[in-house]
């Protein structure tokens, strides 16, 4: 531990600095009255271009980016690079689809995607399913952020051996995070995102200029990786794809992109922006983060070239590949710079973790508490319930990490991706058409969910010897095809979901089952800032905000 003292000091100082910012954020762009869900949960729906860029960037590119993607590249090579096409295809989709969700939400004061589903399809049941799916999918995603912090702490040697000592620093970090999220709501991650992203850009620019120079150039980095994969017995690694994993690569990139824009935290980030043009402009500016992500991914190859050996995992005989990037920085850079890099990862985990817990809290408050427990809740009650829920969600995420093997954080998140995809017909297609029947959507959700979970159960993981839930690459041979190819589980599950939705809709329409009343109008999907028809509920208490 003593040889890491400089790193620990730098990390701690930066961590405390942003924690302070998190508390101060409550007064940043402050409304007269924070006791409204629009303020706590959506930052007053007032963020302009720059804040939105930092917020969504800090939201979508998480500690998962820093730790798990390079770890995947380190272990499997090109297959891990799916993160790049994934984050390219997402922005045109946001541009086309989420902009409509922003408009209809702005017009009706929706805070969550389930709010939209509730009004569009006149079905509290469907809204409940969407909300529960969102909450359940978000939990492992928050846990994944903890894994990012944990990888750093482990490298600095500040984690003990007993289960409690191993997790004590994380519990402390999350307690601080929980406190300032409780107080400041979405303003806290929005403000911290400035620091987080600045640190990350600095760290990565330095790393990609300095490390190739030190390791003999990009050519020899890729050659070293190639040599490692040639020597390994696994058939599916290598610095380019082979005939069997291309379908997986494509469907995983596309499926992950669909999933990302259905995740409650992405939608929260988008709904917090103040008008349509802010969102559209950001779809051109956010790919800067994709470039960053691609370069970060390649740190995995640099770790191979530098001969990094990952630290042992939680169980005997396993390795924690999430530690390769922290170890790379620890070995190749002076201690003070490694400390900055570690802080960037640690803070990088805080921003999305805060937004995700806020998004989950919004879902619970709007679609469970207000819908089922207390229909006449005032905006102030909504805000206070959401604040408490955000605490509960964080405790749940910590429990995930303490009681589950964190080694497969990326697969945990992929399972979350599979289930959140099942809300696509209601949320995404619902933005375009009301033709789908609410009963059909419920049936499709059940079918897609069952299919997805069954397929995930069937996937073994050779690396750990687990027979079930070993990943999201489903072997097509299990469907009876004579091929070693694999496909992304979520892709198949959502296809089944859609098929059932369409068939059930045709049946329900044929027997004239009531379809409910659509609470939206076609015009709502193009509404912009300044729309005079905003509902009363939307006019928040900061109506005449003070600039002091």
């Amino acid at each position, binding site marked *: 531990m003593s040889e890491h003292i400089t790193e620990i000091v730098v990390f701690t100082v930066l961590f405390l600095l942003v924690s302070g910012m998190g508390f101060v954020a409550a007064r*940043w*762009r402050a*409304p007269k009255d924070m006791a409204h869900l629009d303020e706590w949960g959506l930052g*007053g729906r*007032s963020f*302009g*271009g*720059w*804040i939105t860029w930092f917020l969504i960037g800090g939201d979508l590119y998480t500690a998962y980016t820093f730790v798990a993607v390079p770890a995947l590249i380190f272990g499997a090579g090109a297959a891990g690079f799916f993160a*790049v*096409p994934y984050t*390219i*295809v997402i922005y*045109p989709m946001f*541009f086309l689809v989420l902009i*409509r969700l922003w408009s209809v939400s702005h017009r009706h004061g929706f805070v969550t995607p389930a709010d939209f589903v509730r009004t569009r399809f006149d079905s509290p049941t469907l809204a409940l399913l969407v909300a529960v799916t969102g909450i359940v999918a978000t939990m492992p995603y928050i846990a994944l952020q903890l894994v990012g912090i944990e990888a750093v702490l482990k490298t600095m040697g500040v984690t003990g051996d007993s289960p409690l000592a191993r997790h004590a620093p994380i519990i402390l970090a999350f307690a601080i995070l929980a406190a300032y999220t409780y107080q400041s709501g979405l303003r806290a991650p929005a403000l911290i995102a400035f620091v987080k992203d600045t640190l990350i850009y600095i760290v990565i620019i330095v790393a990609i200029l300095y490390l*190739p120079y030190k390791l003999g*150039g*990009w*050519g020899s*980095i*890729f050659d070293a990786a*190639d040599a490692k994969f040639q020597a390994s017995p696994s058939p599916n690694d290598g*610095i*380019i*794809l082979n005939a069997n994993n*291309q379908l997986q*690569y*494509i469907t995983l*990139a*596309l499926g992950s992109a669909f999933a990302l824009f259905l995740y409650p935290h992405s939608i929260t980030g988008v709904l917090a922006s103040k*008008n349509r*043009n*802010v969102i*559209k*402009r950001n*779809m*051109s*500016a956010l*790919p800067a983060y*994709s470039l960053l992500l*691609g370069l970060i991914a*390649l740190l995995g190859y640099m770790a191979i070239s530098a001969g990094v050996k990952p630290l042992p995992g939680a169980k005997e005989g396993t390795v924690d590949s999430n530690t390769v990037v922290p170890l790379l920085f620890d070995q190749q850079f002076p201690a003070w710079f490694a400390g900055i890099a570690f802080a960037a990862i640690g803070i990088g985990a805080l921003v999305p973790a805060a937004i995700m817990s806020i998004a989950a809290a919004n879902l619970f408050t709007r679609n469970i508490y207000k819908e089922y427990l207390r229909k006449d809740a005032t905006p102030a009650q909504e805000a206070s319930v959401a604040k408490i829920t955000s605490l509960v969600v964080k405790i749940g995420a910590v429990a995930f990490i303490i009681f589950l093997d964190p080694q497969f954080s990326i697969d945990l998140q992929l399972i979350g991706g599979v289930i959140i995809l099942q809300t696509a017909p209601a949320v995404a297609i619902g933005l375009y058409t009301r033709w789908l029947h609410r009963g059909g959507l419920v049936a499709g959700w059940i079918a897609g969910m069952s299919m997805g979970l069954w397929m995930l159960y069937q996937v073994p993981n050779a690396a750990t010897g687990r027979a079930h839930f070993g990943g999201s690459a489903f072997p097509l041979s299990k469907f009876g095809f004579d091929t070693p190819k694999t496909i992304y589980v979520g892709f198949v599950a959502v296809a089944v979901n859609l098929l059932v939705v369409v068939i059930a809709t045709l049946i329900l329409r044929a027997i004239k089952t009531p379809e409910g009343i659509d609470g939206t109008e076609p*015009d709502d*999907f*193009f*509404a*912009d*800032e*300044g*729309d*005079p028809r*905003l509902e009363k509920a*939307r006019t928040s208490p*900061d*109506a*005449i*905000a003070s*600039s*002091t």
Partner: protein
Amino acid sequence: MSTPRSDRSPWNWLLLVPIVVPLLTPLYNFDSPRLFGFPAFYWIQFSFILLGVATTSIVYQMTRRPPDAVPVSLSAAPATSPTAPASEAPSTPPTPSEAPSTSKTASGSETPSGSKPSSGSEASDE
């Protein structure tokens, strides 16, 4: 008043390009030619990022609403409002929360409005 009938535009079809092209693995699943030591698999996919930026930028520029459909005001400083054309003021009384907070320039340039923690960018000059 500021709601157009639709956001349909033939330019939107251009957005299919950055959705489809990055998913066509036969286009880039090669080691050579290398560029600055990067195998083709990597530098070609990096170049798709530029493709994505270019297409979304073009579509944004081509589908922007004419200025009279956009609530116009100014960038950062709310106190100096002489540039806001009076004709842009909504004819219906705006809801209080909306009127002061519009801080987008019509030029569509990336404005730093509201990004500075110091200047409470919520205008108070009703």
